[in-house]
């Protein structure tokens, strides 16, 4: 989460004090990402240095100092909103690596391993769903955050299901044919 851009977004609504920025940031992100006071003020200083926000003159530092967004700050914000997040990085998902490694480890039942992770993921999903179910229905920020996690976790569960189906089709039940010693050592290093 970029605090820098979240602060620009809050200032795009109009000038605000430092303390107000911190409170509104927390309110809008469902209080899931708490900020400390220091983070808000150091980020504001950097934004001012870069010409993206401007502060009131002569009011001193701290909670009472007022800030407003500049025109280049506005451009920075709209550019950021439209920039795709970094989803192109090569997959280094720890769970994927674990399953790949498990295929090479003698005596490991891969389907049982998939189920261990499936259960864990569903338990975490139950907690997010409960957050939505028991939270106030008008807390849109909280519901959006919970939904984002639920869809992400659901994707991982679906990957586990697909992995299970693929392994049933392509790998004999005995699985884990002992791999050559050298390659096994290399896999072991990957896990560390």
């Amino acid at each position, binding site marked *: 989460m970029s605090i820098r851009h979240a602060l620009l977004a809050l200032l795009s609504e109009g000038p605000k004090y430092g303390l107000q920025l911190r409170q509104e940031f927390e309110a809008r992100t469902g209080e899931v990402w708490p900020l400390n006071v220091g983070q808000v003020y150091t980020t504001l200083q950097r934004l001012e240095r870069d010409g993206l926000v401007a502060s009131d003159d002569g009011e001193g530092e701290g909670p009472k100092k007022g800030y407003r967004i500049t025109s280049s700050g506005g451009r920075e914000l709209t550019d950021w909103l439209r920039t795709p997040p970094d989803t192109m990085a090569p997959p280094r998902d720890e769970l994927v690596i674990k399953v790949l490694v498990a295929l090479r480890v003698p005596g490991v039942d891969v389907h049982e391993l998939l189920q261990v992770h499936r259960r864990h993921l569903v338990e975490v999903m*139950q907690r997010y769903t*409960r957050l939505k*179910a*028991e939270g106030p229905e008008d807390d849109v920020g909280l519901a959006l955050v919970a939904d984002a996690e*639920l869809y992400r976790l659901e994707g991982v569960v*679906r990957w586990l299901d697909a992995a299970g189906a693929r392994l049933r089709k392509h790998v004999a039940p005995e699985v884990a044919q002992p791999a050559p010693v050298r390659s096994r050592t290399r896999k072991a290093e990957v896990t560390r």
Partner: protein
Amino acid sequence: MTPLLALRAVSKVYGTGVAEVTALRDIDLDVDAGELVAIMGPSGSGKSSLLTIAGSLEEPTTGEVWVDGTLLSDMARNDRARMRRRSIGYVFQDFNLLPGLTAAENVSLPLELDGVSAKAARAAGVGALTELGLGDRAASFPDELSGGERQRVAIARAVVGERRLLLADEPTGALDSVNGEAVMRLLRTACKRGVAGVIVTHDAQLASWADRVVFLRDGRIVDQTVAPAGPESLLASRPAQ
């Protein structure tokens, strides 16, 4: 506390000889009043068989099914049919509403079949619809309702009267995410009022509405979730409510 639904060593085999298929193997499952349990598994894992056997729409090949402290196989056929009408509510993916009846008539039909007077049944039907936010749609026919509204009518029909056990097969399958979530909120609320609920699904999001998720593979229960910690465990900095 006696569980409202108890399955003991339930197995189900379809066909014989080379065509023999085992759908369920040695299933033990307890569901308490007030509890919502999700049975999660891929296609062909036996989920739907488990649900129809729990709802006495089908009999197990071996094993026992207890509903509200009564062993189903000990009951006379008529008694079992009455219990099915009175105590068990079903919600299906495709709603299964009768097209020639209004929403209120669809909901009150099981009560009327059970001998409740038409007037009292209709009042109960409209009451159940009103609770689900559909009071003004009571006189509408199913084809005049949206998918979300039809499923709410089906839920009203499943909870009307003194139902103790609510069984749902992919109840949000045909709905978008907003209507699907609304349906799950209603099922969860119905269970909190003391009904025992079982939903079967392959969908992890849907299953995550349950108090407990039971995983079914090849007709066997292979695992289940432990009671989840409260949502506050996700928000270390959020003060406990």
